[in-house]
C-alpha cells in the first residue's frame, strides 16, 4: 500500500467512524441539544467524506444547509420552547424495539442495494473503459491539482451566467449558441422565497399593541 492509499484509507475510516459514532450518539443521547451536537459531528463528517470525493459543492451545501442551518434552527427552537433547563427525552422500551427493527430493516435494504449493483458493469458503461481493466489502476503519484479544482460546480456556475457547456458542444446536433443564462430568473425566485419567509415570520409572530413593550419580543 502506498502512502497515498494509506492516507486515503486512514481518513476515510476516521470519517466513517465519526459519522457512525455521531449517528449512534444522536439516537442514544436523551438531551435534545446534545443530540444536535452529535448531529453536527455526524453531518460534518459526511460533508468531509464528500470533500474527500472531490464533490466540494455537495459538501459545502451539506455544511451550509444541514450543519449551519437545520441544527442551528433546532437548537434555537429548543431554546425558545423549553420549559425546563435541560429537556430530556425518554424513549419507552416498546418504541426502542420498533425503531430498532425498522433501522435493521433499512440496513438490510441498503446492504442489499449496494451488493446488487454490478460495479464492474457500471464502471465500464460509465467510463467506456475496457472490462479487463477493472478494478482501475489508481493514478500514479500525487495529482495535486485535482483536489483543488474539484470542477464539480463550474458547469452549474457557468450555466447561471449563460455559458452552457453542453449546449455549445459542437458534437451534439441540438447545439445552441450562448444564452443570457438563468441568473436573473433564479435570483427573482430566491428573493421571492426570502420575502415569503419573512412574511410568514411576520404573520406568525405574537400580536402586540403598538408601543407596548416592543423590546422584549425579540428576546423572549
Amino acid at each position, binding site marked *: 500500500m502506498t*502512502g497515498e492509499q494509506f492516507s486515503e484509507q486512514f481518513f476515510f475510516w476516521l470519517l466513517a467512524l465519526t459519522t457512525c459514532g455521531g449517528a449512534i450518539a444522536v439516537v442514544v443521547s436523551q438531551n435534545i441539544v446534545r443530540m444536535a451536537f452529535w448531529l453536527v459531528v455526524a453531518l460534518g463528517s459526511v460533508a468531509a467524506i464528500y470533500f474527500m470525493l472531490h464533490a466540494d459543492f455537495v459538501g459545502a451545501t451539506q455544511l451550509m444547509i444541514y450543519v449551519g442551518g437545520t441544527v442551528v434552527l433546532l437548537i434555537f427552537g429548543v*431554546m425558545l420552547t423549553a420549559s425546563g433547563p435541560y429537556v430530556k427525552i425518554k424513549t419507552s422500551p416498546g418504541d426502542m424495539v420498533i425503531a430498532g427493527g425498522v433501522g435493521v430493516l433499512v440496513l438490510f435494504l441498503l446492504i442489499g442495494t449496494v451488493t446488487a449493483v454490478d460495479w464492474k458493469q457500471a464502471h465500464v458503461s460509465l467510463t467506456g473503459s475496457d472490462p479487463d481493466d477493472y478494478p482501475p489502476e489508481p493514478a500514479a503519484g500525487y495529482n*495535486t491539482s485535482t483536489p483543488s*479544482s474539484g*470542477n464539480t460546480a463550474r458547469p452549474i456556475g457557468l450555466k447561471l451566467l449563460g455559458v452552457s457547456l453542453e449546449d455549445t*458542444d459542437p458534437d451534439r446536433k441540438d447545439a445552441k449558441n450562448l444564452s443570457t443564462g438563468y441568473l436573473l430568473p433564479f435570483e427573482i425566485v430566491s428573493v421571492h422565497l426570502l420575502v415569503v419567509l419573512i412574511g410568514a415570520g411576520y404573520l406568525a409572530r405574537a400580536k402586540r399593541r403598538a408601543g407596548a413593550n*416592543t423590546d422584549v419580543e425579540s428576546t423572549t
Partner: protein
Amino acid sequence: MSALFAANSLGEFLAKRLGESWGFGLAAFIHAFILINVFALAPLIFIWLERKVSGRIQDRLGPTRVGGRFGWLQGLADGGKLIQKEDLVPAAADSMLFRMAPYIACIAAFGTFMLLPFSGGWVAVASDIGLFLLVAILSLEVLGIILAGYSSGSKWSLFGGMREAAQMVSYEIPLAITALVPIVTVGSLNLVEIAEMQTSQYFLDGWLMFNNPFTFIAFFVYFTVATAGCKRAPFDLAEAESELVGGFHTEYSGMRWSYFFMAEYAAMFVVSGLASILFLGGWNTGIGFIDESLAIARYRGVLETGIYIPSFLANLVGMVVFVTKASLLVFVQIWIRWTLPRLRIDQVMMTCLKYLIPISCVLFLGATLWPIGLLKFTQRSTVFSEPIQNRIERMKDDAQSEHDDAKKSREDADSSVSGANEERPAVELAPAVASAPLGSEGSR
C-alpha cells in the same frame, strides 16, 4: 499547479529528496503548521491593537510597558495569564457541551483560514466554490456560541446565546447576498480567480468596488453586515456586558474563554480579508504597472518546477498587500466599536430585516441588470461584464493557440492567468464562444 498551497514548490522540493509520499506529506504538515500559527498569531496582534486603539480613542495610553515600547507583548502576557487560570465548569452546566462549545467556534474560524488565499499561489485549498464554502464554514461559528449560551446553565448566557442565534440567522442573509454582488461581475466563486481578475490597468480601476455603483454600495453594506456577523459593537448584543454581564461567555474562564476571543478576532480577519478579495482587489496594489509585473512573476512561478525566487517574492509582496488591507479593515472595525454606542436588540434586528436585506436585494438585482443596461445605452457589444468578457476572450485566445502546437508552452501560461483550473472548460467552450455572436444573443 500553484493552486494548492501545500503542494507547491516546497512539496516538489521535498518530494525529490524524500519520495513522493513523505515529501508531500511533510510539505502539507509544514504548511498546516504555518497556517495554524497565522490563525493563532492574528488574534494576538489584533487584541493588542484593540487595546491600544481603544485606549487612544478614550484619551488613554493603552498598554505601554510589556515588551518595552508600546506594550506590544501584552497579548502574550494575557495568554500566559489565561493559561494559568482555573478551568471552571459551573455545577448547573451541561458539562460536555460546555467544554466542547469553544472548540466548535475555534475550529470553524480556523476552517475558514484554509480557504482564504493570502496571495496568488498561497492558499491551502483553492476550491472552485471557495466563497460558498468559506461562508458555509464561517456560519458554523455561531453554533459554538449558541451551545455555549445554552449549556452554561445561566440565564445571562442563555439570553446571549439566543440573541446571537437570532442575530446570526438574520444577518447571514444579507451577508451572502452582498457577497454575491461582486460575484455577478466576475463570474467565479474561486477566491483566487476573483482576486486575480482585479489587476488594475491604470489606478484602482480593476477593483470590483469601482466596477459599478452597485458593487460600490455593496462594499459598505457587506462591511456593516460582516461587522454584525462577527458580533462586534455596535452589534455585540450576544455579550452586551452592560445588560448581560458577559453574555454567552459569562460562565467561562481561562483558556476556554480565550478560545472564543481567538475565534472572534480570527473571524474579524477573515471577513475583512474576504472584503478585500471581493471588493478591494485582493493582493493587487491597484497601481497598474506594479500589478502587471507582479502578476507576470507569479505566473512564471506556475510554469517552473521547484522553488522559483521571483514568483516567491511576488507572492510575498502580494501577501503583505493583502494582510495590510485586511488589517486596515480590522482597524476600522475596532474604530467603529469604540465610537458608536451599542444598539438595542430590536434595533439590531430591525436594521437587518427592514433595511439591510431589502438594500442587499436591490443591489443584487441592480448588479445583475447593470450589464444589460450598459448594453442598451452604451456602445458595448456584449452582455457580459468586463472581467467575464475578458475571460471569455482569453478562452478564445487559448483555443487559437491550442491549434498552434508551436505555442504550446505559451498557451499554458495564458490559461493559468485566470486561475489554476481553466484549461478544461477553455478547450470545450472555446469553439462555441468563437462562433457565437455574444452581444446579439445577450440582448434579448
